[in-house]
């Protein structure tokens, strides 16, 4: 096994820990007095963490020259989607038990839910086009499509910000991370243009 394979499998195993922890707490009766709320928060936070991690790959590669790291990007993105699916299913099944009318009205009436749904709908096409075949078939358009992840990171962060009642310390960290990671992208687009003006 190469060193990179070890890294990849270690990250894969680590990425399953948040899900395993939920199962463990479920069976040991440790999901707090309000398990549904706890699972919602836990899966939502984990999804956002992986979304942010997937955005760190390219800057890491460009700043360190470690090219192999790019091979981790898809896995991190798919884990973000995996936890987003758990999060949304928790909401649909455990929280509302398929009460479509109430869910629909929340999506329309509650801006934070609207943004959660927006984020999820942005992630779906990215997950569907993450296969090697799709990457080949879409070519340049794949790169363009996958820029949607920038928007998803922004909407997810605002979704989190609007969830909290008063204490924005935690979402503030994610907002800071997203701003920094997106600033890299803006900088990379603008720097060459600035040079060409000179």
């Amino acid at each position, binding site marked *: 096994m190469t060193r990179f394979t070890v890294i990849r499998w270690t990250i894969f195993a680590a990425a399953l820990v948040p899900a395993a922890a939920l199962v463990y707490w479920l069976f040991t009766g440790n*999901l707090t*007095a*309000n398990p549904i709320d706890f699972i919602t928060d836990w899966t939502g936070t984990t999804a956002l963490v992986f979304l942010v991690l997937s955005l760190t790959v390219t800057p890491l590669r460009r700043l360190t020259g470690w090219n192999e790291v790019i091979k981790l990007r898809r896995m991190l993105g798919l884990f973000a989607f995996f936890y987003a699916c758990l999060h949304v299913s928790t909401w649909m099944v455990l929280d509302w038990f398929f009460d479509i009318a109430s869910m629909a009205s*929340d999506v329309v009436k509650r801006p*934070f839910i609207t943004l959660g749904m927006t984020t999820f709908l942005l992630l779906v096409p990215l997950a569907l086009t993450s296969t090697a075949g799709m990457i080949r078939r879409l070519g340049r358009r794949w790169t363009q499509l996958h820029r949607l992840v920038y928007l998803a990171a922004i909407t997810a962060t605002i979704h989190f910000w609007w969830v909290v009642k008063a204490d924005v310390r935690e979402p503030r960290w994610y907002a800071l991370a997203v701003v920094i990671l997106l600033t890299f992208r803006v900088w990379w687009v603008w720097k060459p243009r600035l040079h060409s003006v000179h």
Partner: protein
Amino acid sequence: MLLRKAPDVRYSEITPRELYLRRREFLQGAAGVAVGAAAALSPLGVARAGAQAQGRAKLPNVKKSPLSTAGEKINSYEDITGYNNFYEFGTDKDDPARNAQKFVTRPWTINVEGLVKTPGPIDIDSFIKPHALEERVYRMRCVEAWSMVIPWVGIPLGDVIKRLAPLPTAKYVEFFTLNDSKQMPGLRVPVLDWPYREGLRMDEAMHPLSILAVGLYGEVLPNQNGAPIRLVVPWKYGFKGIKSIVRIRFTDKQPRTSWDLSNPREYGFYANVNPSVDHPRWSQGSERRLGEFFRRKTLMFNGYGDQVASLYTGLDLRRNY
């Protein structure tokens, strides 16, 4: 005013507390080492450890009250003391159980201020002593759309106010929480405009359902639930139930409250439980009773409408949320 008579509810019949205690014994027993270590890593484990560290004392001479809510399954001691909103000790639900363990509640002084016959400080024990302790089982509906049923022990706020003798010009009563950042780590963060403050209209405060709680489950109030003394107004959202009270002020002007100051669009002075007036960010039409899977419909005035609706005749509850 209609006061429904309710038969006594004995919580020992409803909630198998013995079972809970036995479960704890089990946890502390042989298997306890392994299970305990694992539980300590979990969110609830921390709260559990916190609740155990404080020690618990039975309150003497608690009489049951006919004003208790009947026919509800009471939540476990563990849920009531491990899942708290008490931002002075942190904003996560298990923070208060963890961070309030060493909170000092004796000696404790309550300062009576404003439009009242004899303003001044009163020691907590002399404050409580003239009143008989009553057990009041009430529903508690949090503004975050979850609820519990809690067997409080307390004294009627109306009787306390009569004893304090406010002047006829007093129209409102205002309460303040202790503001001691040495003991309350949450105060070092400007999440709200400290100290926490709440208020009631005088007729709301005089209502027989309003109490100052000093205990729950027949025992001294745990720190994370607002020891040594807190307000309980069962037809209003839980945040009206101000904890660890150090000042009571009588005034002729409607007081501003902490949540109203923090976000006036989302929180008003009245904060009556009302399923038809949504919080801007979530529906108030239903709630999750802790321990249940399905949501239940939220009741107007948290189900205490028969007793309290008459306080609000002529008031536009949509505008006065």
